[in-house]
């Protein structure tokens, strides 16, 4: 069986600087896969390339049996690939509900969209309470919830989350991780970038460690958690 997402020898450059230097990885349907690595490792670049926001210099991306190489960014979501970007990037002057509706921009089933908005409010009750409020007035954690809820609104086959816990309080971070666990238990396929390697690897079925644009290590989440290199570099243990 082929994986839902298959990345082969992907290279991405900003001008002359190569940020991703030939990485390969895959995500099977139903898995949570974590990409970990320090700042500048190329994690966000990889996700933005998958979404079509950056064009790769070479390499193959196959999603759900289809090549993504020549698909413009605005068509990627219709294939079932949703991206919750780093820094959340909610639409600050639109309301929470309007943000969620934009997540379903390409869907035509009004009733289904209504139901999914309700599901997002069930998942994150605070969003339901503030549905008419401008999204820019939400706290960081609430914005993160909105960004995740918005990404789910396209009913994706694969959900990509870029640093969902960045800059959040420990309580909020835990809440977000619990939500990812809930989504996993519901069968959602997730590609997760996390600076909190401990939390990410505990959740992940499989993990990849990126270092300055190259794939350094990979293994099951459990194996990586006990790997000496990973423990030293990413879990802050001697």
């Amino acid at each position, binding site marked *: 069986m082929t994986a839902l997402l298959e990345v082969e020898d992907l290279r991405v450059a900003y001008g002359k600087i190569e940020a991703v230097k030939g990485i390969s990885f895959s995500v099977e349907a139903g898995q949570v896969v974590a990409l970990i690595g320090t700042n500048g490792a190329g994690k966000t670049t990889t996700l933005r390339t998958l979404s*079509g926001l950056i064009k790769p210099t070479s390499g193959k991306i196959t999603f759900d049996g289809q090549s993504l190489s020549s698909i*413009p*960014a*605005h068509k990627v979501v219709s294939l079932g690939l949703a991206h919750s970007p780093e820094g959340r990037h909610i639409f600050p002057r*639109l309301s929470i509900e309007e943000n969620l509706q934009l997540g379903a*921009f390409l869907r035509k089933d009004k009733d289904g969209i209504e139901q999914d908005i309700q599901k997002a409010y069930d998942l994150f009750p605070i969003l339901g309470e503030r549905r008419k409020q401008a999204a820019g*007035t939400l*706290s960081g954690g609430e914005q993160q919830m909105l960004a995740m809820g918005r990404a789910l609104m396209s009913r994706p086959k694969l959900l990509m989350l870029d640093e969902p816990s960045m800059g959040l309080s420990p309580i909020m971070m835990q809440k977000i991780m619990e939500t990812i666990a809930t989504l996993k238990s519901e069968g959602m396929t997730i590609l997760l970038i996390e600076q909190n390697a401990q939390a990410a690897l505990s959740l992940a079925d499989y993990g990849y460690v990126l270092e300055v644009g190259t794939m350094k290590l990979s293994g099951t989440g459990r194996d990586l958690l006990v790997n000496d290199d990973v423990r030293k570099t990413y879990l802050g243990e001697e």
Partner: protein
Amino acid sequence: MHELPQQLANGLALGALYGLIAIGYTMVYGIVQLINFAHGEIFMIGGFGALTTYTALPSGTSLLVAIPLMIVGGAIASVAVATAAERFAYRPLRNAPRLAPLITAIGLSIALQQLVWQFYPDAKKAVSFPEIPGEAFEITSNLSIQRSDAFVLILAPLCMLALGLFVSKSRSGRAMQATAQDPDTAKLMGINTDRIIVMAFAIGAAFAAVAAVAYGVDKGQINFEMGFILGLKAFTAAVLGGIGNIYGAMVGGVVLGIAESLSIAYIEDIPGMQQLGGGAWSNVWAFVLLILVLLVRPQGLLGERVADRA
């Protein structure tokens, strides 16, 4: 002060005209952060498109029929030129340093003026434009409204209302707001941002065509240079109101129009300022107002700073 209501009405009509043109600056700026300095010429092209339509109509066509057709014809011309400019002049420079599209806009502005001057029949001087016949409406003893002023005073609010509904209620309008606030993320939602940008140029151009017809029926003539100073004033109105904000464009236009009208009427009555009043100085006072407002509110009257916690 007996003529104050009249001055306010004149200012309002002038301001509505500025506002209609200012929409084009503000929408394009709001989405691609480009000051489209060729927008004054888009307005001028709208006028010539309308005039061409009028010339093509059988003589004796009632203005009630002709004017709507002229607006349509003017809009077709202005939208065609504006979207072509976007596609061929601005889009290739989307990721270039900001100065490049700005210089392109200025070049395009000159080129469009010269093209009309060179190729439109008799356009080397002002060409006559149909006027709305009939007496002014006498509202009170000290207030009468010219028919051409009534025309713009009715059309401008209607256009604004339609635009406001479109932006806030329609799917494309929502996509437009999303693109203005965060273009990359808008793409992640499945929004074709290139199409939204074309739409912003087109709406601005159509509004400019409405303004051009309003201008033509008021002055009874149009010329290839008319977009320069009016474009500059409308740009001032957009900045005054808060560039990027569509309601700000209208508010800025009205404030500017009324200020100009009052400066023409009253500044010369202020002791010691006789030399600085009248029509000759109205542009000066318009820009003085702009500077004063920007000193106090750099973001413009309705420009806002929403807390974007990142």
